[in-house]
């Protein structure tokens, strides 16, 4: 990218001569553009198919808009409830004298370990005959008829498993908000509640908004939980029509894509306008004494963490243990042996590690472009990558399947591993780009200058100076991608090569076949692995994620 004025050769030489640190080298711009084109491909294909395939006229029917309306309804409900729940929990655990605060701070983000469909399956199976809740109530002579389904069920389950997306950024913000702000507000005459409303809340809004945006995207792209709750959102319509009514499937995919991108664009416009103080102080924030309210506050925390973290685990463990005991007593054999379990676990760990490493490697040039050079190109590429994140996994999957089917030189890619990894990276790459950007920024430009003046060339600087300094940040980014990949259901379900069975696919199939005991065991393994990763990432290294 050189701008050459139309002048004499010598003037042109001067212009090139001026190409300093501000403008990115062509290798960097080139790879960033290449990556952006790849990222835009699945979305572009959906738009192209929707326009050329006549899907858009379908959208004029009232019937077609019903799934859209249901999707919006659910997404707004879940966003609002998680915003309230996440903020309240964050405030209680970070800013008050709640008993066992440190324990709550560790437990509160952990519901992230459940993919929504496993959470939904755990609630469902717990309430059906044979499930722990149903049978416990049955001990007292009641026949529990309560079933979770529809809007209420989907809303409840998604709220419980998505609130950490609000909790984490808000808690981080509250923890670093300098106490001097609040002390000043007090000195200027505000009462504690006024301080919260006039100082704390405005300084937290952008974190709440960012968290709610994640929840909104999580909800509109959710596939498993709404399927289990039999609540037909756009993802369900797409999934149902993907084989026999592609026109409708692509029309709905187009709607879903438009909805997601619109919300992201709106949030970014609003976020750009809000003014925030830069947090620098290392002073501990003010704590509010709850007094008598400590007891109800602790009870609420127990209830939420109990429902979102322990109840699903108990329900799954109950089914798993039941199945295992049945087998031990020779009553019924589990349709799952250690070999199946081990191979599914291995597939999951393997594919998500590979995806994570590739994602970080691919995002590194973009991170460099964003962190080291001021160029319009960087902004555009970043938007494309974020759009990839906003694009639901199901839409990426549908797009890639039909693209590989129809694009004549690329048929050999159908159902191949590279396409699966590509789908994951388009969907989750943004998680790595953020942390990679933080990592690149954490290497001061002076460090690079110093190494240059000591005679190190580009490669030596990268290997001996930059990568070692960036390592913790990059590892955190890879971990986030790995965590998301191993929990991902629809893309895996649709794009994975024949016979490549990850834990999510096995869990899905066993649940659909109503082998609840097997489902319980598989789900517990997945939850255990992602719990370890979450622990490592969210609880121990949260500083690299901001």
């Amino acid at each position, binding site marked *: 990218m050189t701008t050459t004025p139309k002048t004499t050769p010598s003037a042109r030489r001067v212009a090139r*001569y001026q190409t300093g640190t501000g403008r990115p080298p062509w290798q960097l711009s080139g790879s960033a553009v290449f990556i952006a084109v790849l990222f835009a491909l699945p979305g572009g294909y959906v738009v192209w198919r929707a326009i050329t395939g006549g899907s858009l006229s379908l959208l004029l029917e009232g019937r077609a808009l019903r799934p859209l309306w249901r999707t919006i309804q659910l997404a707004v409900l879940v966003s609002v409830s998680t915003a309230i729940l996440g903020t309240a929990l964050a405030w209680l655990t970070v800013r008050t004298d709640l008993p066992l605060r440190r324990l709550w701070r560790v437990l509160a983000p952990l519901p992230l370990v459940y993919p929504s469909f496993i959470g939904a399956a755990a609630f469902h199976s717990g309430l059906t005959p044979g499930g722990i809740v149903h049978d416990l109530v049955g001990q007292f002579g009641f026949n529990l008829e309560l079933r979770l389904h529809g809007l209420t069920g989907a809303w409840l389950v998604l709220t419980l498993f998505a609130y950490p997306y609000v909790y984490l950024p808000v808690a981080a913000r509250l923890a670093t908000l300098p106490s001097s702000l609040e002390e000043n507000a007090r000195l200027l005459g505000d009462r504690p509640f006024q301080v919260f409303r006039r100082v704390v809340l405005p300084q937290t809004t952008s974190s709440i908004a960012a968290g709610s945006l994640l929840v909104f995207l999580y909800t509109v792209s959710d596939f498993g939980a709404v399927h289990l709750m039999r609540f037909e959102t756009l993802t369900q319509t797409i999934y149902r029509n993907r084989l026999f009514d592609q026109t409708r499937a692509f029309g709905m995919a187009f709607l879903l894509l438009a909805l997601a991108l619109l919300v992201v664009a709106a949030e970014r416009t609003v976020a750009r306008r809000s003014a925030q103080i830069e947090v620098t102080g290392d002073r501990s924030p003010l704590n509010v004494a709850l007094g008598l309210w400590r007891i109800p506050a602790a009870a609420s925390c127990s209830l939420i963490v109990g429902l979102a973290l322990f109840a699903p685990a108990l329900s799954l463990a109950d089914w798993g243990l039941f199945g295992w005991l049945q087998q031990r007593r020779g009553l019924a054999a589990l349709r799952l042996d250690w070999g199946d379990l081990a191979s599914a676990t291995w597939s999951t760990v393997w594919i998500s590690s590979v995806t994570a490493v590739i994602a970080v490697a691919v995002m590194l040039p973009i991170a460099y472009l964003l962190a080291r050079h001021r160029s319009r190109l960087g902004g555009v590429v970043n938007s494309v990558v974020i759009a990839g994140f906003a694009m639901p996994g199901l839409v990426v999957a549908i797009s890639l399947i039909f693209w590989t089917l129809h694009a004549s030189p690329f048929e050999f890619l159908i159902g191949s591993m590279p396409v699966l990894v590509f789908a994951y990276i388009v969907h989750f790459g943004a998680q790595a780009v953020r942390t990679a950007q933080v990592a690149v920024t954490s290497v001061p430009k002076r460090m690079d200058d110093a190494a240059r003046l000591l005679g190190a060339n580009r490669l030596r600087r990268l290997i001996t100076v930059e990568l070692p300094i960036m390592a913790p940040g990059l590892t955190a980014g890879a971990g986030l991608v790995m965590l998301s990949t191993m929990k991902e259901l629809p893309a895996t379900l649709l794009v994975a090569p024949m016979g490549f069975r990850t834990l999510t696919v096995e869990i899905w199939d066993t649940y659909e076949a109503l082998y609840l005991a097997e489902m319980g065991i598989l789900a517990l393994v997945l939850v255990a692995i992602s719990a370890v990763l979450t622990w490592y990432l969210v609880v121990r290294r949260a500083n690299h994620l901001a």
Partner: protein
Amino acid sequence: MMNIWGTPDDAVAPSGLSVRDLSVAYEGPPVLIDLSLDIAPGELVALLGPSGCGKTTLLRTIAGLEHPASGSVAVGNRVVTSNGHFVPPERRRIGMVFQDGALFPHLDVRRNVAYGLPRSERNSSRANEALDMVGLSEVANRMPNTLSGGQQQRVALARALAPRPGVLLLDEPFSNLDTTLRLRVRAEMHRLLVDLGVTTVFVTHDQEEAFVLGDRVAVLHEGHLAQVGTPDDLYRRPADRWVATFVGDANLFRCNRPSGSCQTPIGEIPVLVGSDGPADLLLRPEDLALTEGSSGTVELIEYYGHDAMVHVQLDNGPSLKVRTNADLLHRRGDRVAVSYIGSGAVALGL
């Protein structure tokens, strides 16, 4: 004088440095305009100027970290930057110490110092020698974040010196240190650089630091070299009004035709360097003394310990700064007179 690099066989003569017609521009007005500066081998030159004058840009352009729009830079006889020719910084053999040291946080002190050595020398005793020079061999195995700010700066100096650079650049190397530490580290580095005889260019915004360390001082103002000279030159014979007021405290008296002498509110002043047209006479505070009398009032006293600065408002003229010795005879509000005790003033054309 001790051999530059400790042992005779690896002695490298320090290089001179020559900057010719250098212009640097980003978007907007140029940062440096047609700037030329010659530095002799072994010389210690300070680049002095207010923030934003382009002094750091000049240093970074010499290092090759910035690309000039035109002009050339030569280290010794080797042209490293000229129109159409650009030697990348990693091949210039120029050492640089950054404001905060910029030590690699993941490498211990010894490996930091060895970083710039050729592969074959990285495990040799060269790194230890460099650490010895700055008197820090005992911290060779520590990590940078366990060192004090002054130690970090000395390690950074050892790291820059280890590969035997032809020229050493220092970018405000003491500005991150607190006052007492700054004076100590400054004195140590000064002695070392003089002993080694290495050609050194350093940037500072602190006039005292430039005067104390610099054999010569180059004053930059808005992208131009306002004046280059020895500290004494700059202080006694500044090139213009701006330099006069930037380096040191100045009392200025307007004078219409300064030749021979000039009449001022404090009497007749002999003029050393005249001017054809109207000019300002420069009277440094130490050229003035307080005497018995009643031509002005003491407004303000700044007490420094080794001396004091007394601000006197003349009844029939401007306010003057007078440097007196530390045993103060006057208090705020006292009536005094001011007399000239210098040997002649410089007239600065308007």
